């Protein structure tokens, strides 16, 4: 096979055994790789509790990984989410995917539970299970320093070990496999880290065609203002969005009570750039390099973190944002969920954020002290405990990221339908609703959005499976990536055939969520968005979302997606998609 190796490593921690399983071409064609293949292998276990020993945790690369394809360094980690109970996948960068592929594997499936805290060390064909007892409770930067000679690193910090529901797995010291609480899945198996080092090659069917296809994509990337423009993410990181979100009245402020932040101008990406003189870094195989590191070595916050640790919690101190970001990373904790849970807590407890010590609170969460115990369960469970669930700004228990859906109705629908809970990345309508790519759409209407969201979910399932970075799809499309995919695998595939695979992957995820009891009632937004209440010191106020229109758009989405009126998948559609 070209592109894939056709090999998956199965690790059973109960028996401490390793086995190589072959993946057949038909299966690879159907599910591509990354998120698609991982979902395929997760399916039969999805109704188990997240911490059942049989529940697998899956690491999957795609056919593009470790080839010269643009943005080819990403991969998927998947299991059942402890936070949302949905399928829990995270696309993550760094070098882990590339290294894994270089060992001659497409993926790893880990089941069972180790008796002692352990590390798994993979070096080409060699797999070792080692004790990690001495590393218990260690922070990410310590682990990175200790393990760096062993290749790429996936590790958890104290947040996961102490049971925080939104603990992350951190790759190579600062790339977070975030949002889903996957760190807790690691902890439930008693894994502290996995390292992987490979020296092999991924065979490409047609290197000349790959070069040509790559050049077409590079040209489009160069022409993209959002990626490579003077104010694009290559120069400023994803924080480049900060000003725009405020200007468009979409910056979630004080737990989504407002959508403009008075101090935004002094906390934007140029302000960070001036203060921290950052260097650019990026995932393996990427020339956009959207990650920024301050001269003191701390990573600059991503847009979501910048926004939530300032506007959402009402903090105007840049150093607090930097410190909070660093703290979460060091302890392996999701920044969006942490900030959003704090914002929810401040509202529920009637606290004034300015008088709170944010870092001390985050520390209480990680070490499960006092209120930290409640906060570590995430905002939905916290608000439930307070008897005021409306204060939790979540969908399916996942804390919403930094785009107020009252300013972009495609985003409203996308939050509701995303298979892993309130997530912006599943359909990323910011592309057309805000960044005007591939063409602008009217952000204040649901008209036409059902099909757009469905199609974009399919595209992003493709990109998470190939795997490529979603950001590059601001510029390129599946049409160009189909050429890359065909050149690498030697299989003739059009963009539309890839989209079919994307549809299959999304439908499979729907089926899994349905098996865990999710229905239309879960595809909903917090009530706050339907009630007029925003009070900006600004003449213009975006109105509340019209609930009838929202429900009509959701019903239209179900039709386009091939679901019944309760959002349930059907046998016929599943068969049509070969599921």
């Amino acid at each position, binding site marked *: 096979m070209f592109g894939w190796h056709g090999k998956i490593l199965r690790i059973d921690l109960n028996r401490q055994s390793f086995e190589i399983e072959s993946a057949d071409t038909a299966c690879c064609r159907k599910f591509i790789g990354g998120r698609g293949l991982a979902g395929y292998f997760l399916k039969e276990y999805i109704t188990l509790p997240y911490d059942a020993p049989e529940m697998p945790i899956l690491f999957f690369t795609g056919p593009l990984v470790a080839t010269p394809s643009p943005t080819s360094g990403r991969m998927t980690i998947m299991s059942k989410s402890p936070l949302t109970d949905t399928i829990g996948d995270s696309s993550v960068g760094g070098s882990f995917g590339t290294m894994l592929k270089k060992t001659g594997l497409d993926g790893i499936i880990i089941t069972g539970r180790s008796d002692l805290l352990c590390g798994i060390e993979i070096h080409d064909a060699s797999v070792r299970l080692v004790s990690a007892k001495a590393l218990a409770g260690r922070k990410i930067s310590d682990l990175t320093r200790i393990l760096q000679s062993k290749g790429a690193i996936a590790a958890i910090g104290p947040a996961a070990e102490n049971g925080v529901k939104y603990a992350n797995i951190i790759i190579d010291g600062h790339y977070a496999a975030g949002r889903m609480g996957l760190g807790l899945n690691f902890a439930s198996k008693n894994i502290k880290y996995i390292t992987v080092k490979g020296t092999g090659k991924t065979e490409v069917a047609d290197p000349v065609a790959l070069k040509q296809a790559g050049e077409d994509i590079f040209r489009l990337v160069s022409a993209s203002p959002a990626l490579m*423009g003077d104010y694009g993410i290559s120069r400023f990181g994803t924080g480049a969005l900060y000003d725009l979100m405020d200007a468009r009245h979409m910056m979630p402020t004080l737990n989504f009570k407002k959508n403009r932040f008075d101090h935004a101008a002094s906390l934007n990406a*140029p302000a960070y750039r001036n203060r921290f003189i950052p260097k650019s870094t990026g995932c393996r195989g990427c020339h956009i390099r959207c990650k920024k590191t301050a001269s003191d070595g701390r990573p600059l916050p991503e847009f979501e973190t910048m926004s939530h640790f300032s506007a959402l919690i009402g903090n105007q101190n840049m150093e607090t944002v930097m410190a909070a970001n660093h703290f979460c990373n060091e302890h392996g904790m999701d920044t969006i969920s942490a900030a959003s849970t704090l914002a929810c807590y401040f509202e529920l407890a009637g606290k004034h954020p300015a008088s709170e010590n944010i870092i001390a609170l985050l520390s209480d969460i990680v070490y499960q002290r006092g209120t930290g115990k409640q906060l570590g369960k995430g905002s939905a469970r916290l608000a439930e405990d307070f008897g005021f669930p409306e204060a939790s700004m979540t969908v399916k228990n996942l804390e919403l990221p930094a785009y107020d859906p009252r300013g972009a109705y495609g985003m409203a629908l996308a939050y509701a339908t995303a298979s892993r809970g309130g997530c912006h990345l599943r359909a990323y309508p910011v592309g057309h609703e805000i960044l005007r790519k591939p063409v602008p759409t009217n952000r204040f209407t649901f008209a036409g959005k059902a099909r757009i969201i469905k199609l974009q979910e399919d595209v992003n399932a493709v990109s998470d499976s190939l795997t490529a970075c979603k950001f590059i799809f601001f510029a390129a499309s599946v049409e160009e990536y189909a050429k890359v995919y065909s050149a690498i695998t030697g299989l003739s595939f*059009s963009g539309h055939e890839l989209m079919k695979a994307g549809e299959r992957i999304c439908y499979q995820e729907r089926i899994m969520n349905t098996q865990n009891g999710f229905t239309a009632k879960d595809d909903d937004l917090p009530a706050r968005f339907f009630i007029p209440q925003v009070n900006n010191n600004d003449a213009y106020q975006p109105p509340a979302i019209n609930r009838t229109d929202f429900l009509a758009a959701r019903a239209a989405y179900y039709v386009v997606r091939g679901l019944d009126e309760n959002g349930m998948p059907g046998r016929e559609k599943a068969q049509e998609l070969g599921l």
Partner: protein
Amino acid sequence: MVDIFKTYLDTMARNGLIDSGNALMGLADATLDWNRPDDPACKKLSPLFDHLNINALIFARPAEPYWTIINYLAQVSIGPITPKDCETRTFLHDLPITENLSADTLIPILRHRKSSIVKDHGIVTYGTVSLEQPLVTFSSVCFACFVKFFSDMLAETKSGNMNTVKQGILESVTAMLPPPFEKNPPALSIGPFTFEKEVLQGVCEAGSQVVNLGLVDSSFGNISYRANDILYISQTGSFLDDLSGFIDPVPLDGSSCTGITASSELSAHLEIIKQTGCRAVLHGHPKFSVILSMYCEVECCEHRGNCHRACPHARDACSIPIVSGEVGTGPYGLCRSVPKALKNRPGVIVYGHGVFTSDHTDFNHALYNLIDIERQCRIEYFKKINMMAY
């Protein structure tokens, strides 16, 4: 729905892409709607929505002279049409042709490309987000074919390969061209503009004129004005004749990133302003300037094939410098070549792409130069093919 169709139909007609109202448009959400549900083509094209992952479709016969040009190219082309202009190179790759208007023949083609020319029928093109995508593609196909047609005719003439059939087509297409530009363009507001309101008005006014005069393909191009250390620039993908609300203020001290939605040529505009000290910058895609930019008489050039990004020769058309450069900020970005070439010159032509002009006060001179460059290039073109008509 009806209103949505009307907006796009009007835009296409206004830009001379179709004869008024003469396009079939389909838009799908949970259901599929057509602007002319009784058109027999609806039945033929509906399966495209089932078999391709699309939500919008346009099928139309382009207005003249595009239609004669496109149909001619479709008849003589072996395989897809392969224009070499920047738009095709960057976004469309090539232009496939089908023999008949049926879903069976179109689906396999449209799996790989954004449009197909259907011989004797028109152009079919689709979008995945909005009708604006097929509109843009439709316009790009028309523009690319226009440029390719006249480029081919020039090459044939120079190589002595013209025959009576080709000459006949060339003459009939030429007869359908709009009249050449008047030497004096309509007067625009007098600058310099200082208040934001004046700036925005000035930019909108100039943008509309550029479109009215046919100096861009389907309203694209870009335009900016500097006042009070802010560059006001048209947003990416904005229609130049409808700029109100679509102009980004970009502070020159770099203190805000709101310019992330600005035109993909923001870097070129910023550099032009920095290097020439001017206030107003105009960028359009006038066709004969583009055609002449691609006509090169250097023999046996070892850089052929790379002309669009790194031509080392000093070239000009009608004494206007021609430079290489790709869209945006890449290693061959036109932001690197255009600004210095524009210093003390009335304008610069970018190979296979378009023209930049600038001015120190307002848009009057910039517009005059844009028109004059195209006027002269058109005269020069017909001189080169020994036709006196223009």
